[in-house]
């Protein structure tokens, strides 16, 4: 403990010194130095300045640019703020997208940003894989052809298996300079890509292997210096912080307030809390914060919190291949015994709202998708009497105040969570305590780290585990968390198949078809259909899936996350308001959108 405290204190001192040093030595202009953290990664000073490297010193919105930045819309995944792409058009059948680049976009070395840069970036994206850049032309939503129309216009054609996510995936493409990264693609890359996409047999296999074989080379590539099309360019990076200076060639330079940006490193949430309490950060993205720490942060001069929609939901997921969780009455009973309000209060008082019900969707998106249908869902309010009735219906018996399995054996509920997720650990403990109050022996079992947790979960080792759902805004993405690979449905090459529980990552083990509204439906098939269904049909499907989820309870929805952004207005103002569509983007993007100005004395 002492060591931790000392390290945190030392880190603060080092950082404070670095801040002071940067302010004086680097001679930031009147715009000053904006201080923040990157919520998606920690700083690795030895990592290359390369956006394809997961720990590379490229920070989205600052010196890392995408074609466009996604808006935080609860239902529509295809709404974006312009970035390198000034505008775009899509054919009604979503088969073709034409992207028009910013006419004044330039790299930090003064060269213009052209269609060639976009094409090279797409080529590099193919080496890394991904939905829009799958090498199998049968994969849904894959780009099949890239054509340069003119230096500022690119046309991209979708493959035969269409996905409503094509535009969204395409616009999320990271753009890098062709004159720096172009050499990573062999001269015959595009011919090889055609063979990989349109041929079959050994030649196609060789072509695919050749392209995916470039992945490591692309990730390891280390440009000598940063060449950025964003508002900032990397000046230097050390283990404590990265310092970025203004890119004078940024296409919308006049709206950028700060002269420099300092991205501080952190090793855990506690360090971010300390940064916030000491007033060092002008902005910090969502960080899990205990109530007492939040109170301390609020007391800091200029400190404020912006909150808004976050399409993430925490749930308790069942392995229906394991008894007694194959019985819907048991799942319902557990839902009736969990006081979600209390669980949220304990686990995520600042970053979550108790789930109104279980629909598989964040309540805000659910209301938008379902309208009045949302209120018709069973809310599963705390009700021990109903829980007891459900358990009796499942054949469970109560002996000596404890519930036992139908065969008389003791019922031991084990809830699994990764040890590093302290909010989940607290929530799981609260749930086990609540179940204990109602005669169910329950315990929390932690797994050392998240990767191992996911691996053991996929192997079907757990009866019940915590699971993130509702990852919108794309309706397919929302429901594939429940009726996707984890539950046996695999969508590949436009074909959907269902695998048996306990195989190929099917750990939820739900039935392939269920009764809903008087008919049997295949929830996995419906989820797959969300990829290419019309908006009206999507709404209909979501209504059915919400109803199925509410009745069958493959998961119990616990709390909906709230995106909580920390800001300090002592040095800068003009942050986005609550519920802004830009809230989940970095403050670098906010600057690009004309927000964040230096506070006037």
């Amino acid at each position: 403990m002492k060591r931790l405290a000392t390290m945190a204190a030392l880190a603060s001192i080092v950082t404070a010194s670095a801040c002071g040093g940067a302010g004086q030595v680097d001679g930031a202009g009147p715009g000053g130095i904006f201080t923040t953290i990157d919520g998606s990664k920690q700083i690795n000073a030895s990592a290359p300045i390369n956006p394809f490297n997961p720990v590379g010193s490229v920070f989205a919105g600052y010196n890392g640019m995408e074609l466009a930045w996604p808006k935080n819309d609860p239902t529509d995944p295809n709404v974006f703020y312009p970035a390198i792409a000034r505008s775009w058009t899509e054919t009604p059948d979503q088969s073709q997208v034409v992207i028009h680049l910013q006419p004044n976009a330039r790299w930090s070395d003064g060269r213009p940003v052209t269609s060639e840069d976009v094409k090279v970036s797409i080529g590099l994206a193919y080496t890394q894989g991904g939905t829009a850049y799958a090498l199998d032309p049968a994969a849904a939503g894959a780009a099949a052809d890239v054509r340069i129309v003119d230096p500022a216009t690119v046309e991209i054609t979708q493959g035969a298996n269409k996905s409503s996510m094509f535009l969204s995936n395409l616009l999320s493409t990271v753009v890098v300079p062709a004159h720096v990264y172009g050499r990573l693609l062999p001269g015959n890359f595009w011919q090889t890509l055609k063979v990989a996409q349109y041929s079959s047999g050994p030649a196609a296999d060789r072509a695919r292997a050749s392209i995916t074989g470039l992945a490591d080379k692309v990730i390891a590539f280390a440009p000598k210096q940063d060449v950025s099309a964003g508002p900032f360019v990397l000046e230097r990076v050390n283990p404590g912080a990265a310092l970025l200076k203004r890119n004078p060639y940024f296409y919308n330079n006049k709206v950028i307030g700060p002269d420099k940006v300092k991205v501080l490193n952190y090793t855990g949430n506690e360090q971010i809390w300390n940064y916030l309490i000491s007033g060092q950060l002008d902005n910090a993205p969502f960080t899990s914060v205990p109530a007492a720490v939040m109170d301390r942060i609020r007391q800091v001069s200029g400190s404020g919190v912006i909150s808004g929609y976050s399409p993430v939901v925490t749930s308790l997921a069942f392995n229906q291949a394991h008894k007694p969780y194959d019985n819907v009455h048991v799942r319902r009973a557990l839902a009736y015994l969990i006081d979600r309000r209390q669980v949220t209060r304990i686990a995520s008082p600042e970053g979550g709202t108790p789930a109104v019900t279980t629909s598989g969707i964040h309540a805000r998106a659910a209301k938008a998708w379902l309208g009045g249908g949302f209120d018709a869902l069973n809310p599963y309010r705390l009700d021990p009497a109903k829980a007891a009735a459900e358990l009796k219906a499942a054949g469970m018996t109560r002996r000596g105040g404890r519930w036992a399995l139908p065969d008389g054996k003791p019922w031991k509920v084990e809830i699994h969570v990764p040890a590093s997720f302290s909010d989940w650990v607290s929530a799981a403990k609260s749930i086990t305590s609540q179940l204990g109050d109602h005669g169910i022996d329950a315990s929390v079992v932690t797994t050392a780290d998240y990767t191992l947790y996911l691996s053991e979960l996929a192997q079907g080792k757990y009866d019940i585990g915590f699971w993130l759902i509702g990852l919108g805004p794309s309706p397919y993405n929302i429901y594939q968390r429940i009726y996707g690979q984890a539950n046996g449905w695999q969508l590949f090459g436009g074909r959907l198949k269902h695998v048996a529980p306990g195989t190929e990552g099917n750990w939820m083990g739900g039935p392939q078809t269920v009764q809903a509204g008087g008919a049997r439906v295949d929830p996995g098939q419906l989820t797959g259909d969300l990829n290419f269904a019309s908006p009206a049909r999507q709404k209909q499907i979501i209504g059915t899936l919400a109803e199925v989820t509410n009745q069958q309870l493959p998961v119990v929805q616990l709390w909906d996350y709230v995106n909580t952004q920390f800001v300090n207005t002592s040095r800068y103002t003009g942050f986005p308001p609550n519920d802004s569509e830009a809230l989940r983007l970095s403050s670098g993007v906010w600057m690009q959108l004309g927000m964040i100005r230096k506070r006037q004395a």
Partner: protein
Amino acid sequence: MTVTVLPEVAGTSRATLRRNFWRGVWRVLRRKPSRMAGVGIVALFALMGAFGPLLYPANLPRDDNALYAPPSLAHPFGTDFEGTDVLALVVTGARYVLLTGLATAFITVALGTAIGLFAGFRRGRWDTALMRLTDLNLAIPGLPLLLVLSTVWKFTSPLEMGLVLGLLGWGGVARAVRSQTLSLRERGFIEAARGLGLPTRHIVGRELLPSMAPYIAMNMLIAVTGAVYAQVGLFFLGVLPFEANNWGVMLNLAVFSGGALTTPAALPYLLAPLLAILLLTLGIVLIVDAMDEIFNPRLREE
């Protein structure tokens, strides 16, 4: 006559020796109040381990409206994240910690002593082989190995935890016991025993072992503290299974979930298990101090 009387004489003298020994112990303990305090502390923890869980219901009561409540008469160390009395958590959590400590100490000392005695007494090839094994044991990086083991082994029982910690920790004891054995085996009383043709078992069990008993006993107590630190540390790192009343888990949750190093709200939740560890260590160290005097003639004469 001789046959019937001698055992009685021997038995009487052993009883007298025992009585004198315990009188000596009592005298040594009384000489410094801190030693009495040490015995008191360890006895308190032993009672907590044995009877602590019986003082509370199986599901500890919670106050939903008193999350991270400050210390009060009702909750001397406040409450945790779900309103459970922190003192109750410390008391009920003592059993796992102590059982692990005892299991570790027993395995460490049993293995270390057996291997050290055998190697030192036999010397030659056995000594070489066993000491290489000991070197291997000493070279094992304990913490990284435990971190890896925790991914495949859940350590749900304190005995499992103690077994692993014991198997990792016997090397030092084996080395020290071997050194002592090598020294003692050249002493006159061992040579006399050998000259009398007494069996090896007798020489090792009755002659060598009692001479090293104080040293072994002190090692055993110190092994308990080492085991407490090791397992609490592993629980703190979050690599071992969750038990709300485990002291290491309490420390973990106080820091990472309650922000105890950032705000005072969760500080009692952090300090209570720390205080328990500190007290337990202190008690053991004070007893070791007393044992040192009991078994060390030079200190006794001072």
